[in-house]
């Protein structure tokens, strides 16, 4: 009888995993239908950023001295484009987490309560939230893959990318993508739905600009308080991780520290996000 069904753990896991894959399939269907808006959302920011800072401005100044961009480019060794490649990939990864989890959640908790049907799946509530992190991570990886060719080919000076360890790159990419989803879950469940518009100004812009996206962390050594202060920003480890994996020549944090901090923030934000999610859907 139905009472006995749940007593066997193998049956229970079969039920849970079918529900989990059902949710993934639903998200995949929705994403494939919105592939054009997805690509535009992912590509527009890095496309314009690269176009203006690594193509238009170098042409305007003609590489003349005194241009801040030219100076930065010189400092970076391989041009500003080399600094930006991992940074813009980090932004794309982070922003996919926000766009895939935080913004839809704000809508679903606030206006439509659409989440109710998915919460009614035969799946522990935490797993519904974990599915969101997983699917967001897939989007983050795609976003990073879309940004790479843009950041590699647009800059007028050649970008010096070199992958010495594919394992390290894949590990960083996976951890960073999951971390972005967990960040999205935390924001989506902690911020009141009607205030979700504010997170761009209050959260996203600060963590991006202070996230070692447009400069390597090592370059902050002359502003010691800032170099220490940005360590609480998880985006720093995404940027530095991508930097260590793709453009190690520009200088980066120790690899073990990057991995440890990515894991730490992934665990912390997943924990906060899951608690927030349960609080939102259960009364």
């Amino acid at each position, binding site marked *: 009888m139905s009472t006995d069904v749940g007593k066997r753990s193998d049956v229970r896991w079969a039920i849970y995993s079918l529900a989990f894959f*059902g949710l993934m399939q*639903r998200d995949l269907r929705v994403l494939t239908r919105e592939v054009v808006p997805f690509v535009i959302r992912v590509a527009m920011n890095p496309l314009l950023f690269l176009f203006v800072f690594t193509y238009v401005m170098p042409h305007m100044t003609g590489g003349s001295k005194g241009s801040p961009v030219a100076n930065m480019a010189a400092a970076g060794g391989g041009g500003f484009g080399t600094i930006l490649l991992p940074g813009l990939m980090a932004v794309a990864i982070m922003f996919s987490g926000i766009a895939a989890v935080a913004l839809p959640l704000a809508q679903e908790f606030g206006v439509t*309560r659409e989440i109710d049907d998915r919460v009614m*799946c*035969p799946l522990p509530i935490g797993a519904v939230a974990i599915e969101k992190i997983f699917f967001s991570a897939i989007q983050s990886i795609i976003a990073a893959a879309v940004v790479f060719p843009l950041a590699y080919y647009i800059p007028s000076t050649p970008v010096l990318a070199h992958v010495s360890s594919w394992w390290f790159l894949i590990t960083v990419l996976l951890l960073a993508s999951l971390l972005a989803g967990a960040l999205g879950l935390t924001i989506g469940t902690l911020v009141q739905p009607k205030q979700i518009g504010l997170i761009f100004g209050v959260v996203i812009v600060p963590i991006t600009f202070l996230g070692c996206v447009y400069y390597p962390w090592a370059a902050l050594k002359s502003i010691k308080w800032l170099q220490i202060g940005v360590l609480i920003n998880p985006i720093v480890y995404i940027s530095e991780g991508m930097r260590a994996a793709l453009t190690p020549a520009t200088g980066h944090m120790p690899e073990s520290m990057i991995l440890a901090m990515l894991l730490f923030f992934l665990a912390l934000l997943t924990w906060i996000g899951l608690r927030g999610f349960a609080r939102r859907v259960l009364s």
Partner: protein
Amino acid sequence: MSEPIVDILGLRKVYNGKNSVTAVDGIDLHVPSGLIYGLLGPNGAGKTTTISIATTRAIPTAGSVRIAGIDVVAHPALARRSIGVVPQFNTLDRSCTVAENIYFHCRYFGLAKTEATARTAQLLDQFRLSDRAAAYPQALSGGLAQRLQIARAIAHRPRVLFLDEPSAGLDPQSRIAMWEAVQGLRGEGITVVLTTHYMEEADELCDRLAIIDHGKILIEDTPAALKASIGGDKIYDLRMCGVRDSGILERNLQTIEGVTRVEVIDGGLRVLARAKDGLLANVVTMANEFGLRDLTTTEPSLETVFIRLTGRDLRE
């Protein structure tokens, strides 16, 4: 009687906060399998909270709920396999089409692709939604959206379907279509538990009712038995010119055969009686001598039952 499909024992729910609110205050409920069971009560009576707990979306302060033998607090994920829910608000997935709403629901509950496709087609047909299969939920009228919510909720063949205020916001025609859809579920062996504050809905649709107010069940029975508890199948409200000798009239009326009760109401008397030929004529003849101005005839309704139990109108 067999084991109840929905078994609620000593259920309490207190929302703590600045002013803590006791939404459910000791509810016991045993719903036998196969019925359409109604929770009737005014807004804020605790109906929705009871349903939220039974459907694993709220945690009770005390008490237990078992659905098809499964404790919903201890095993929420597994209990959900036996539960279908149509909440008060439209929770359709707006990123998916009408057909996909049902299809993915089936997939969440482990139906294989071909099975889910077949079930979707069958439900679209059963709920007369086939021609809107490719539309998005935003394009549906309130009535169609409600039908789709019911179709989706039963897609995984739950044992019990919970409907929270199913006709709120529906026009009369859609309401009747919804009633028909719900009555059709009887044939599929699905037990239905619904909340409502519409008397007619409770009366028309439900096999049994619990009248609930301030988080407590006041009475529980079939609609017919509840109405019969009023003590007559006809209610005559007599409006009198002045209140001359109403005490005498009251006593005289009670002597008429078939009259079960006479009560004083504002501006006259209320006569409760069994349906009987000639009774009305006798009442009128007798009251006429005392200055009868007007008379209204009604049949006892659940509204009358509720007023008798609480002293207030259900819609207050």
